[in-house]
C-alpha cells in the first residue's frame, strides 16, 4: 500500500468498513510509515475539532418566538391568493 492509497482509505478505516485484508495492509503501512501515522492523527484530530464546535453550540430546542411569529405571519398573504 502506498501513502496515497493509505490516505484514500482513512475514512473507511476509521468507520471500520475496510475488508480484513485491506485492514491488514493499512496497519502494516502504519508500522513502517511515520508520516502516514501523523497524517492519520491530524485527520482524526480535525474531525474531533469539527465535532467540538457542535458540542459548544447553543442549539435552540425551541425556535425563537419572534422568528416563529415572522414565519407564521408571512404565510398569511398566500392564503388569500
Amino acid at each position, binding site marked *: 500500500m*502506498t501513502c496515497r492509497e493509505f490516505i484514500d482509505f482513512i475514512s473507511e478505516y476509521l468507520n471500520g468498513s475496510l475488508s480484513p485484508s485491506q485492514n491488514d495492509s493499512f496497519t502494516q503501512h502504519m508500522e513502517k510509515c511515520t508520516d502516514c501515522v501523523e497524517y492519520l492523527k*491530524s485527520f482524526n484530530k480535525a474531525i474531533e475539532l469539527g465535532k467540538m*464546535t457542535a458540542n459548544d453550540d447553543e442549539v435552540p430546542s425551541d425556535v425563537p418566538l419572534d422568528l416563529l411569529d415572522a414565519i407564521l405571519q408571512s404565510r398569511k398573504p398566500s392564503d388569500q391568493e
Partner: protein
Amino acid sequence: MTAEGMGPALTDQESHLLHQLLSGEDKAFETLVKTFGGRMLATARRLLGNEEDAREAVQDAFLSSFKAIPRFKGDSRLSTWLHRILINAALMKERRQQSRPTPVQINDLLPTFLPDGHRADPGPEWRQMENELTRADLRKIVRAQIDRLPAEARAVLILRDIEGLSTEETASILETTPNSIKVRLHRARQALRTLLDPHFRRLS
C-alpha cells in the same frame, strides 16, 4: 435506487401532522415550525455563520415548504424533507452574500503525492493546542476554517460529522447517493485538515 427512496417513511406523528397541514389547519403550521424550526436554525447558523442570514434562510425554507406541502409525497421523513429545503435556501442565500470571501477550491486542499506514491509535503506533526488556547479560541479557529470550505463540502461535513446524521439521511437531504456522500465527506475532512494544518503544526 433513488435519493428519495433511501430515507425511512413518515412516522405516525408526521403523517398526522401532514394530514392537518394539507387541510390548511393554522395550528398545524405552528406545530411544524415549533417542532423542526430549532434544529433547522442550528443547521443554518453552522452553514451561514451569522444569525441574520440563518434566520432568513429558515424563514425562506418554511415559506417554500408551506407552498410545496401539496406536492410532498411522504417518501422521506418530514424532517429530512425540511432539511433539504433549508440547505437549498441557505446555499442560495450564501451565493448572494457579497461579503463572503471566495471559497477555496476543494482540489487545492487535498494532499499531493510524488510519482512514487509518497506525500509531497508531509510537514511537521500537530501539537496539542488545548494547552495553548482556550476552548473558545480553539473553536473560533476551527469555525473560521470550516467557513472557508466550499459550500458543498461544508454542507456534508456539517450534516455528517457535526450533526451526526447517517450517510443515508445526508444523501437524501443533499439529493445524491450514499456513495457520493462518502467520497465528498472524505474530501471535506482532508480539506479541513489542510486548512487547520498551519494553525496546528509543530513550529520548527
